[in-house]
């Protein structure tokens, strides 16, 4: 592997670490900041790849990630965080145990994918064998787990953005899809976050309801 490959591996690892950071937070504003860092890391990877591959598409992709995910989505979420401290703190969350379960979930999920799916599918990434895909996959599972383990609308939106970030990373390492598609996906996700942020005002937390049982 070239030094640049090592650098991308290292930066991608930071994307996974940012996922753990988000999972470990109880304050919404910290989670939003974690999402900003994560999106910026992915934008950075896109810029590095754009530089070494002389790809305008990857450069545009990096700009899109930085602007739409890093700036606009963070802006929308940040604007919706209520001013009063009691609202931004997600109570009844045992962060330590959630982190452990999250880790177990990721390890089991990735073990299954690598031992069953990837052994028969001959996936070749830009960085050789499929080992680098462990980073987007772990991010994907972290996003799913965040959605499943938290009750607040904010946390679940951030979980969804994490999932989307993981797909960008997955495509970056495997094969970047045409920029027109990627741009449409980004706009879709942005619109969904805007719609969700409208609902945040009306409904901050989610609990089982008798009317929706069965």
């Amino acid at each position: 592997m070239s030094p640049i490959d090592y650098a991308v591996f290292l930066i991608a690892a930071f994307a996974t670490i940012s996922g753990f950071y988000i999972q470990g937070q109880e304050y919404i504003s910290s989670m939003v900041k974690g999402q900003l860092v994560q999106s910026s890391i992915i934008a950075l990877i896109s810029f590095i790849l754009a530089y070494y591959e002389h790809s305008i598409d990857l450069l545009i992709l990096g700009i899109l990630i930085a602007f739409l995910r890093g700036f606009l989505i963070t802006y929308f979420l940040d604007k919706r965080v209520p001013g009063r401290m009691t609202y931004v703190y997600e109570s009844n969350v045992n962060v330590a145990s959630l982190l452990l379960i999250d880790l177990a979930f990721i390890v089991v999920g990735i073990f299954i994918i690598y031992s069953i799916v990837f052994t028969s599918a001959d996936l070749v990434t830009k960085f050789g064998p499929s080992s680098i895909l462990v980073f987007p996959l772990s991010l994907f599972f972290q996003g799913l787990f965040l959605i499943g383990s938290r009750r607040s609308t904010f946390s679940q939106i951030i979980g969804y953005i994490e999932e989307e970030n993981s797909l960008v990373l997955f495509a970056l390492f495997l094969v970047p899809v045409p920029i027109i598609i990627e741009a449409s996906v980004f706009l879709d996700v942005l619109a969904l976050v805007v719609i969700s942020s409208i609902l945040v005002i009306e409904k901050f937390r989610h609990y089982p309801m008798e009317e929706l049982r069965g």
Partner: protein
Amino acid sequence: MDPIPLIIIILPGLANIFYRVNIKLAGAVSASLTVALSLFLYTQLPLTGLFYIDRITWVFLVMVSSVYLLSTLYSWEYVNSIRNRGISQNNYYLLLNFFTASMFFSLVMNNYGFMWVGIEATTISSALLLVTEKSDVSLEATWRYIILVSAGVTFAFISVILIYYHFGTLDVYTILHSGGTASVVIKIAVAVALVGFGTKVGVFPVHTWLPDAHSEAPSPVSAMFSGVLLPVALYVLYRIYEISPFPQLYTWFAVISIAAASLFLAYQRKYKRMFAYSTMENMNLALFGFALGGAGVIGALLLLVSHSFGKAGAFYSSGNILKSSEKRDIAQIKGIWKGMPYTSSSLLLSSLAVTGTPPFGTFVGEFIILYAAVVTHAFLQFGIVLFFLMAAFISVNYNITGMIFRGSSDLKEPGKTMPIISLISSIIPLIIGVVIIGGFFNVLV
């Protein structure tokens, strides 16, 4: 490039220009035009290029435009009478038009990536429609719809990436006419698509948003969800399945989902939730037909067309009852046949239609799918499906006949156009069935 598909996509959006003038009327005019254009499109088939439209796509286009027209007309009275509105009347029609445009987009695009974008856009445009009748429950149902469907459909994008990785293109026509592939990567893509798009189709166990969203949405929107949104997602899933069929996986998931839906149906206490589970059952039966291939595809198409009108009729009828009684429980509705003759008729006809009673079109569709199961030697699946179809038939019709004929009530029809549209929508599956059984099947297919 043929301009008609483009016009079909744009027309609902164009109606939104009249937002401040008369968006209701503009929506109805645009819906009528899309029906006419969709029907006319048959003479231009097949279309390739920017759009990919064959006979299968055409069936879906006609279905979407027709239910869009019925729902728009039904909404006139229904939305007008809502007291605690979460969104304004004009915003309701605006979103309904965008929602329909995004479904048209998903159907006609000749690109798997854009199909995914279209499906995601249907979630965005329809989410706020769920809070038209604002309550704490509808807000919760809306949120579940957004987060579960979006998180699920994200899986499907992995399929899109894998398809692009293998073929180097996302062009639907090119991929489907590339001569097939036995690649493991594509098998994985097809399998992942079942989880991803399956979330929107209502495949067990990723169906959980479905009963909540259907029961809390205003009835014309429930009709659009059940009648056309889920079939559109199924269409996209089928287009991916066609690349490299994986019948064992798809048929078994469909069979398990039918069984689950049938079991859920047995203990439902609310009529709109009951119809939602009936939709899950019908969608998975159509998926079963598509997965079997051959005659199963024809059966699935017939089932979907008849079901779209039948289920729309069922939800319109439910809307009439809800408006009149303000009650959602099956047990609280009794003997409506005296005071609500149109609604009773439409409710009975539509419940018979969605449970596949002869001679409705759904029956013909189900019969052909089961025939395809026998022909392909899927005997075990055939037996399981047949058993659970009968169980679902009993569950739905027992409750509905009870609501109509058992006891008495002083409920009255809620308006003039709502009951008539319910009845029209419920009669269409009967006409389809009678026409096909009457010998026009070969002409149509």
